[in-house]
């Protein structure tokens, strides 16, 4: 039997209803077609895309990539995919930590979890053995206590927020530095699965270790040459919070529910403030070479950039200590701080409450445990604002609350928010890379010209990276050109950067098709009205006008054309078949 270099060729299918397991053999074709990770997960999700997120048949998918466990730089991410309770789109996120490599060392490329257990339980995977057990967690138990049950291997757990039906409940992995977005923690909860623990004793076979080492050196050389990642003021030194000053100086830092775009308060809220007040040390996901996380000297994690801004400037909170408390609360309750904070900011604007009248920490706790106002807010800003008849005040796209880059200050970022398959997310196309971080080249942030193609290409690259299960941050420095060499070394099959881009295009298009099946149209590829009517906060000699609606729509049309979609942003049968994807007519 030939060795599957870089892949085990087997995916574990778990049915929680029947508490049964089986193995799916994955042929070589699907693997090259979808790479792994996000691509493979999408491939498995597609037949179920029409189902509601809480249907027992809806799969929750965990996929490793061909580089997982091989020692290739920053390649230890795990792709998790299902349908989002918050956006009702297909939703993928990448988790750090060692869950992926433990899974692969157990002999599995991934897990497809379906069904619904009659009582809360956990799943224990040790190599080929899979057992169910009654959940060890007591209700409302904090996430850190839950993770503490598992001292070896790696675990994926949900938190109290999922028990209370918070639509942006996260799933938390041992050794990861972030709370995931999109509410897939709630999907796991609807299956009555509170945790999955995995421990593997095997190893991952690599075709040519020497070539892999050389490819890894090429990648790490670029990491060292990257000011964003490893410069004196970069992520390795200050965490992603290092972005605060730059984004603020560009008038792109969202304050008070995006009513202002520059923080000019007297209390510093930037990365240096945390450093000065508490002293910080870097940490990162296990197996990462960048270490974009940051911890205080007392051990508490500094929130990542988007959470940090939303838990402070966006909600009018000017205290670093309260930001830390708020962030820790989200982490312990298992919910996405970006959506949670943005929902609170929306609530404050609608109710007219000032920051002094709102205790953000208390509100977050109320959301997590569905108490008081929290009961209204736990469904996210879009549902809350709609219920209050002010849907336009939800700063979200497809129901996913926007991250901490104001789209009026960077037009590629604006377009990418609108068209991302998972809703208001910057990381799919990461236009801030060229629009404000000058990588790989600087582009004019105040124009749509050329951006549709840049967005499409960057989405393809990111889809491929998520499928290799490479950390998105690495794309600030290295590209698929270098990773193609690493993949070649691992699998022994010649691959080029361009091959990966093609796969990335296919992976992204497949998600488009799934969203189409779920009823999404161009009407959903849009931004909140505020960005087309109100200017941003002027400063540093720059005025920030509202986005020009016509130019935005024109750019979106161009994007649709370049992506191979209809004028209404819908996938086309011809293009779909061209990419080798099956075609389903939703009618």
């Amino acid at each position, binding site marked *: 039997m030939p060795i599957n270099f870089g892949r085990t060729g087997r995916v574990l299918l778990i049915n929680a209803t029947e508490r049964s397991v089986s193995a799916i053999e994955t042929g070589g074709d699907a693997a090259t077609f979808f790479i792994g990770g996000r691509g493979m997960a999408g491939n498995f999700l597609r037949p179920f895309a029409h189902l509601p997120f809480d249907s027992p048949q809806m799969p929750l998918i965990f996929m490793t990539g061909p580089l997982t466990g091989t020692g290739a730089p920053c390649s230890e991410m795990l792709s998790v995919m299902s349908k989002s309770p918050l956006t009702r789109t297909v939703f993928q996120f990448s988790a750090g930590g060692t869950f992926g490599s433990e899974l692969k060392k157990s002999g599995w490329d991934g897990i497809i979890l379906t069904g619904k257990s009659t009582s809360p339980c956990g799943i224990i995977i040790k190599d080929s053995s899979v057992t169910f057990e009654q959940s060890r967690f007591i209700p409302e138990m904090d996430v850190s206590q839950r993770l503490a049950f598992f001292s070896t291997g790696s675990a994926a757990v949900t938190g109290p927020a999922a028990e209370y039906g918070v639509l942006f409940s996260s799933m938390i992995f041992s050794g990861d530095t972030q709370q995931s977005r999109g509410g897939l923690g709630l999907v796991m909860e609807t299956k009555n699965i509170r945790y999955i623990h995995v421990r593997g004793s095997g190893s991952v076979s690599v075709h040519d270790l020497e070539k892999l080492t050389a490819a890894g050196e090429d990648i790490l050389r670029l990491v060292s040459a990257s000011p964003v990642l490893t410069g004196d003021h970069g992520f390795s030194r200050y965490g992603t919070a290092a972005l605060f000053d730059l984004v603020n100086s560009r008038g792109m830092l969202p304050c008070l529910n995006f009513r202002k775009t520059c923080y000019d308060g007297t209390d510093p809220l930037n990365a240096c403030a945390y450093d000065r007040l508490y002293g910080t040390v870097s940490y990162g996901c296990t197996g990462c070479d960048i270490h974009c996380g940051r911890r205080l000297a007392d051990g508490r994690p500094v929130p990542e950039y988007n959470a940090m801004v939303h838990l402070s400037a966006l909600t009018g909170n000017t205290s670093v200590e309260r930001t830390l408390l708020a962030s820790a609360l989200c982490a312990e309750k298992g919910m996405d701080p970006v959506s949670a904070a943005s929902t609170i900011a929306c609530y404050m604007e609608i109710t007219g409450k000032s920051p002094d009248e709102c205790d953000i920490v208390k509100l977050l706790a109320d959301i997590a445990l569905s108490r008081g106002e929290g009961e209204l807010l736990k469904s996210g800003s879009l549902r809350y604002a709609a219920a209050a008849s002010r849907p336009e005040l939800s700063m979200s796209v497809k129901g996913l609350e926007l991250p901490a880059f104001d789209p009026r200050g960077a037009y590629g970022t604006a377009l990418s928010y609108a068209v991302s398959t998972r809703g208001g997310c910057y990381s799919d196309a990461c236009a801030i890379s060229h629009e*404000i971080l000058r990588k790989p080249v600087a582009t004019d942030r105040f124009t749509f010209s050329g951006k549709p193609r840049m967005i499409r290409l960057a989405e393809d690259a990111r889809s491929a990276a998520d499928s290799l299960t490479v950390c998105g941050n690495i794309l600030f420095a290295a590209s698929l050109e270098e990773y193609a060499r690493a993949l070649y070394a691992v699998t022994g099959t010649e691959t080029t950067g361009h091959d990966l881009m093609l796969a990335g295009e296919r992976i992204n298009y497949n998600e488009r098709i799934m969203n189409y099946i779920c009823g999404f149209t161009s009407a959903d590829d849009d931004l909140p009205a505020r960005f087309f009517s109100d200017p941003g906060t002027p400063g540093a000699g720059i005025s920030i006008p509202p986005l020009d609606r016509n130019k935005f729509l024109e750019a979106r049309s161009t994007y649709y054309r370049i992506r191979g979609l209809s004028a209404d942003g819908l996938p086309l049968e011809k293009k779909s078949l061209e990419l080798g994807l099956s075609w389903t007519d939703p009618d």
Partner: protein
Amino acid sequence: MDRPGLKYSARLVKSGLCEAGAPLFGIMEDGITWSGRIQEEHILEEVLNTLNFGSILFSPTAEPFRSITELLAGEAQPSGSIVPDDTETRTFLHEIPVISAFTPGEIITALKRRKGAIIPGRGIITAGPVTPEQAFVTFSSICFSCYVKFFSDYYYYTRGVKKLPDSAEKIAPQALKAYRSALKNISDFPSAKGPFTSDEAVYAAIVEAGRLTVSSGMVDSFFGNVSALFNDCIYITQTAASLDELEGCIDCCPLDNSSTCAITSSSEYSAHRALYNLTHRRTVLHGHPRFSVIMSLLCDRHECANRGRCHTACTAKRFINDIPVVPGEIGTGPLGLVRTMPAAMMGRGVIVHGHGLFTAGACDFTDAFTSLVDIERMCFEEYCRLVQF
């Protein structure tokens, strides 16, 4: 809309890499727009349509780059690639593929793998996936890396340790002659005098120093970095900034760690900072002058255990006359030049192996810039002496 790639075509011509009218840019927006015409436009069209890049650049090169790339390409055949030893190649290009025919298939195969390629008898083709600037930078880097490789090979050829085709005997003297007269013609020096008294003065001095570094030919692809220390702040050029147009591309980074705005500044910010900490200098200039780089690559200790890893592992105390040559890669990694260059800055400047030259000034850019040019002139004459030109 401007003619596509106009700005970068002008730069290629101005820096002597291409003849006027030669560069052809193809820009893909909704359709493809070409900056000029060549017979085989349909070939490039097919390349662009297949690869889906935002832009592509094809151009024959001007002398001496034409002869140099032809010679190196000949050495790389059949269907091989050129692997120069300089930092630019190692970090960004990795290798330069040589393709045997001007056909869509050959070009596509090369550009699927790497950023650019040499087509013998025709020129160089490079990709700009995001913007035409990328295609320009890669084109320029390929020319620079090939130039550096040729003259380092030529040195070993004159020493009898490397074979080169006879044509090298013709190419080298002509290129050296041309470069000698270019060096002689450098006559503009910084006018901004220190000590600086306002941040406006600092910005203006950096802009001027950047412009002169480019016009004197002390860079490749217009990249390098320039900084000045003023009022407990380091004013430094941003990463990927063209040194001849620095307006709006200078970051002010306070030394008290109160802000992280240097996140967009040059990848050598840490090295500049370390240098200011260790010395009393007030300005730093960094360029990639050709013969400073070439001379740093030459070493006669063929049996050295570190041969092939000189750029990080060289332990010899090397000098070119008074100028130290140190190992070190770009940036802050464990093998980064931040750990070698600053401490070596005792005199006029420091050369980083295979990479470029750093000089520092006492209060403005006059001495730093003069040193940059003088050291390059010295390295050039030293090279000429070694190859008996």
